[in-house]
C-alpha cells in the first residue's frame, strides 16, 4: 500500500507520523515543493527577527524521516490523474498512489488592488515570501501593512524589529475587533501605538503607487491620503489552497469538500488541514479551520482514516493563542467579538492594560475564557467548559487555572472580586 501526502505542513506531517504508527509496513511519501523538510510555519517571524535560525524551526532532526521510512519528495504537484491514480510532478514525472491525502494548506488572499503586483508588495505565508521579505526589507525605511489580522501584526513586529517605521492600515475601528471583543482589541491598539507604529483605522486601501520603475513608492487610501513607503505588506487573511483540485472532479467549495473522516467525493482521495472544508452533517455551516492546532488534530485523525480506521473528526472545545508584541493571549471556548444572545460577559482589566480576563457564561454555566497577559491551564479551562461548571464555581476556583511562571504577581483576588460584582 502506497500512501502519498501532498504538503509537508503540520497537517501532512502529523498524518504521516500517525499513519506510520498504525501501519509500520506501508510505503508513505510526503511531497512538497516549499521545503525539503517540515518546518514550523508560525516560526517564520522568528527567523526574520533573528530569534532563531531556519534550522531551529524544524521540529524533527533530518534523520527522523529516514528512521521512520517516510519518503520525502521535494517537488511540486501540478496535477492529479484520478483514473490511473497518479500524481503529476513538475520535475520527477509521475508518482502512483493507492491513497492520497491533500494537505496543501492555504494561500494569502488578494483583493485585486491596483498595484498589488508591484515590486515591494507582498504577503507572508511561506519561505518564498520570507526570502522576498529579506530582499524587500533591505531598502525599506517606511512600510505600510494592509489588513489587521494575526499575520498583519506579526509582519508589523518583524519589520519593527529591524527599525523600519511601520504604518498599519485596518478596515476595522480597532485592531482585530472582528474577532476580539472591543476591550481586548483596545489593549492591542495601545501596544501597537506604544511601539511607535502608526495605526490608521477604518480606512481602506485604494491603490498602490508605482514609482515609475515597477516598484512601490506610496499607497493611497480611500480618503485620498498618500503614504510614502518602500514596502507594502498585504495581509487580508488566507483561503484554502485548492489550486491542485479546482478543475478536477474532486468537489470544492471554499475549500476541498470532505466529510468528517476527510473523504472527498473521490474514493481513496482525502483532504485535511487548512485546505479542507468539512461539510456539516446537519446542514449547518461547514467547518474551515486554519490554525496550527486544528491542522495537527485533523492530521492525526486523517492519519487514522488513511490507516483504515474508522475515525470521525471531533473538533472538540475550541482553543487558540497568539502573542501581540509582548502581550500573550489565550482563549478557550468560542468567544465572538460581541456578546451573543443569552451570554453573560464578565471582564476585568488591570490598570496597566497588560493583563485582562474575560469569562463568558451562558445559562449560568461557563462557556469560554479570554486571557490577556495571563497564562491559563488548558486542561483546567477545557474541563470546566466540558463539565458545564457554573460561573460561580469557576470564579471560586479561578486560581487553579493560573499557569503563570512561579513568583509572578497573581491577580486572582482582584479579578474574582471584580467579576463577582459584575455577576451580582
Amino acid at each position, binding site marked *: 500500500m502506497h500512501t502519498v501526502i501532498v504538503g509537508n505542513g503540520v497537517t501532512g506531517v502529523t498524518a504521516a507520523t500517525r499513519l506510520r504508527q498504525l501501519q509500520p509496513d506501508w510505503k508513505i511519501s510526503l511531497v512538497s515543493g516549499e521545503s525539503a523538510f517540515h518546518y514550523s510555519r508560525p516560526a517564520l517571524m522568528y527567523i526574520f527577527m533573528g530569534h*532563531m535560525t531556519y534550522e531551529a524551526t524544524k521540529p524533527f532532526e533530518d534523520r527522523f524521516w529516514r528512521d521512520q521510512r517516510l519518503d520525502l519528495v*521535494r517537488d*511540486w504537484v501540478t496535477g492529479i490523474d484520478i483514473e490511473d491514480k497518479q500524481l*503529476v510532478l513538475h520535475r520527477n514525472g509521475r508518482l502512483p498512489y493507492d491513497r492520497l491525502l491533500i494537505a496543501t494548506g492555504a494561500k494569502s488572499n488578494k483583493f485585486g488592488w491596483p498595484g498589488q503586483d508591484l515590486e515591494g508588495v507582498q504577503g507572508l505565508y511561506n519561505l518564498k515570501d520570507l*526570502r522576498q521579505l*529579506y530582499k524587500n526589507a533591505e531598502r525599506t525605511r517606511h512600510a505600510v501593512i494592509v489588513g489587521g489580522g494575526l499575520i498583519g501584526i506579526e509582519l508589523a513586529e518583524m519589520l519593527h524589529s529591524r*527599525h523600519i517605521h511601520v504604518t498599519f492600515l485596518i478596515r476595522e475601528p480597532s485592531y482585530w475587533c472582528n474577532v476580539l471583543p472591543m476591550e481586548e482589541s483596545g489593549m492591542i491598539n495601545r501596544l501597537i501605538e506604544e511601539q511607535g507604529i502608526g495605526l490608521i483605522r477604518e480606512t481602506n486601501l485604494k491603490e498602490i503607487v508605482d514609482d515609475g520603475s515597477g516598484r512601490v513608492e506610496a499607497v493611497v487610501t480611500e480618503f485620498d491620503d498618500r503614504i510614502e513607503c518602500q514596502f507594502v505588506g498585504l495581509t487580508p487573511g488566507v483561503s484554502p489552497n485548492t489550486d491542485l*483540485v479546482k478543475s*478536477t472532479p474532486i468537489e470544492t467549495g471554499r475549500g476541498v469538500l470532505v466529510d468528517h473522516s476527510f473523504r472527498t467525493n473521490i474514493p481513496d482521495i482525502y483532504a485535511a488541514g487548512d485546505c479542507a472544508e468539512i461539510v456539516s452533517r446537519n446542514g449547518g455551516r461547514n467547518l474551515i479551520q486554519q490554525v496550527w492546532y486544528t491542522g495537527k488534530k485533523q492530521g492525526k485523525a486523517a492519519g487514522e482514516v488513511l490507516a483504515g480506521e474508522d475515525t470521525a473528526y471531533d473538533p472538540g472545545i475550541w482553543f487558540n493563542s497568539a502573542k501581540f508584541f509582548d502581550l500573550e493571549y489565550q482563549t478557550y471556548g468560542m468567544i465572538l467579538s460581541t456578546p451573543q444572545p443569552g451570554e453573560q460577559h464578565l471582564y476585568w482589566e488591570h490598570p496597566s492594560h497588560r493583563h485582562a480576563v474575560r469569562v463568558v457564561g451562558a445559562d449560568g454555566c461557563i462557556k469560554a475564557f479570554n486571557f490577556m497577559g495571563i497564562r491559563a491551564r488548558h486542561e483546567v479551562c477545557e474541563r470546566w467548559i466540558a463539565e458545564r461548571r457554573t460561573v460561580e464555581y469557576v470564579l471560586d476556583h479561578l486560581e487553579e487555572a493560573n499557569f503563570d*511562571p512561579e513568583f509572578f504577581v497573581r491577580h486572582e483576588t482582584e479579578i474574582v472580586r471584580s467579576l463577582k460584582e459584575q455577576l451580582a
Partner: protein
Amino acid sequence: MSTPPAGTTLIDPETIAYFYDEEADGFGEPASAAEAPRNPGLMVSAGVIGLGFLALAVSLLGSMPLAGAWTPFLLSFGLLTAGTIGYAWFAYKDTVPGIKHDGIMFGNTTHRGAIAWALGIALTGFYVVLYWWPEYLARAIALVEPLSQALAGQPANQWFLYGFLYTMAVVLFGFRMFMRYRHNRYHIIRTISVMFFQLVLAFILPHLLRALNEPEFYFSYFWPLKYDYLFPGTVDYLVNSPGALGSFMVFWGAVCSFIATPVLTYYYGKRWYCSWVCGCGGLAETLGDPWRHLTPKSTVSWKIERAIIYAVLLLIILTTAVLWVSSTSEGALSSISAPLQQWYGFYIGAVFAGVIGVGFYPVLGNRVWCRFGCPMAAVLGIIQRFFSRFRITTNGGQCMSCGNCTTYCEMGIDVRAYAERGENIVRSSCVGCGVCSAVCPRGVLKLENGPSHGDRYPGSDKPLGALSTAVSKGARVYGDRDGYV
C-alpha cells in the same frame, strides 16, 4: 512536460514552482538594514567601558608601582563597573518589557562571529595563564592587592584575582539580567540568589575567614563538584586547622553532599543548586546569558553528554574512594591514588571546568561544563529524573512547535519534542533556569514542584523501576526522542 491524459488538471508550474535551497541559505544576517535609533546613553557607556580598559591597560602595562594603591584599582574597575551597568541600563530602559531576542542569530558576538571567537580565545587564554603561568599575572594581582588586604588581611594571589573578577562578572551581568528580564520575577529572584551566593558565600566570606585565621572555605560548593572537600587530605587539613570552624566545615560539606542535596532536589529539582546557588551556574546564568542558545541540540550531543558526565562522576567517586583507602591503609594504594588525584585535578578540575567550561562560552554555549562534565550535576540529575517532584508542565495542546524553547535551552534539551506531544519535560540535565518557559510565545511551559513525584510521566510512580530500565537500556527510556513513534 508531457500533456497529461484526461482527468488530470495542470497547475501552471510557473505560478507556483520554485526550488529554493532554504537549507543552504539558512536565512542569515540581512545584507543591510535600517539604522537603529541613536542611543546616546549607550554610546557614553561604551566610552566609559573603553576608558576602564584603558586605565586597566595603563595599570597592567605601565611601570608605576601598584602594590597597596587604591587609585589604579578603583579607577580601572570603577570605570568598568559604571560602564557595564550604564550599558545594560541604557540598552533596555526605554524598551517595552518582554523577551529581547531581536538579532541574536545575526550578532557577531552572539552567533559565532569574529568577535565571539576572539572573546573565546581571550577567555581561554586567561584561564591557561591563570592555571599554568600565573607569573604573567603579577601586575594584575598587585592591582587587587588593596582589596585583598582589606578583606583577608593578606596579600593577593592569582586565586584572589580570579575570585574577584568572577564575582564582578556575576554581579555586573546579573544587573544586565535584571534589565533584560524585568517582566519576569522568576529570573529576577533567581539572579539575586546567584549574585548573593557568589558575592557573599563564595567571595567575601571565604576571605573574611582567612582574615579570622580560619581556613578559606566555600560554603556553597560541595563534593563532588568541589571534589577535594571530601578528600582525606582536605578533611585532615580542616579538622586540624588552628581555627575553631574546621570540623564544622567538614560536617557542613558532608551534610550538604549527602543530606541536603537529595532532600532539596526531591522538593525543588536540580535547579535549587544549579541555577540558584552554584557559582559555575551563577556565571553561566549571568555572564553566559548572551550565548545560551549556542548549546548543541542534536541527539548525538545528548549521547555524548550522557557518556561523559557519568564517566566523570564514576571517576570522581573512584578517585575519592581510592584516596580514602590509601589514606586509611597507610598508603597501600598511593601509587594509584596520587596520580589519579593529580590527573583528575588537572584534566577535569582545571582543563574541563575552567578552560573549556568558561573559555568556550562564546562558541559552545554557557553550560558546557554543567552539561557535559559536572559530577554534581550528574548526581542531582539522577535524583531529579527519578526521585523529584520537579517537572516542566506542558500546557495541553497550545504548543505550535516554533522551537523558541529548544533554541534557548542552555542545556541542549529539545524541549519542543516534549511540548508538541503534550508531555511534561522530565530530564536529568534540566537546570530549571526557566528560560524555555519565559521565551515560549504561547505560554506552554511552566516549571513546577508538583504535589508528588508520581504524576510527572507515565511510570514515574515507580522510580526504581524507571531507573533500572534506564540503566539497562542505556537511558533510552521515556524522554528519548528516538522512541517518537
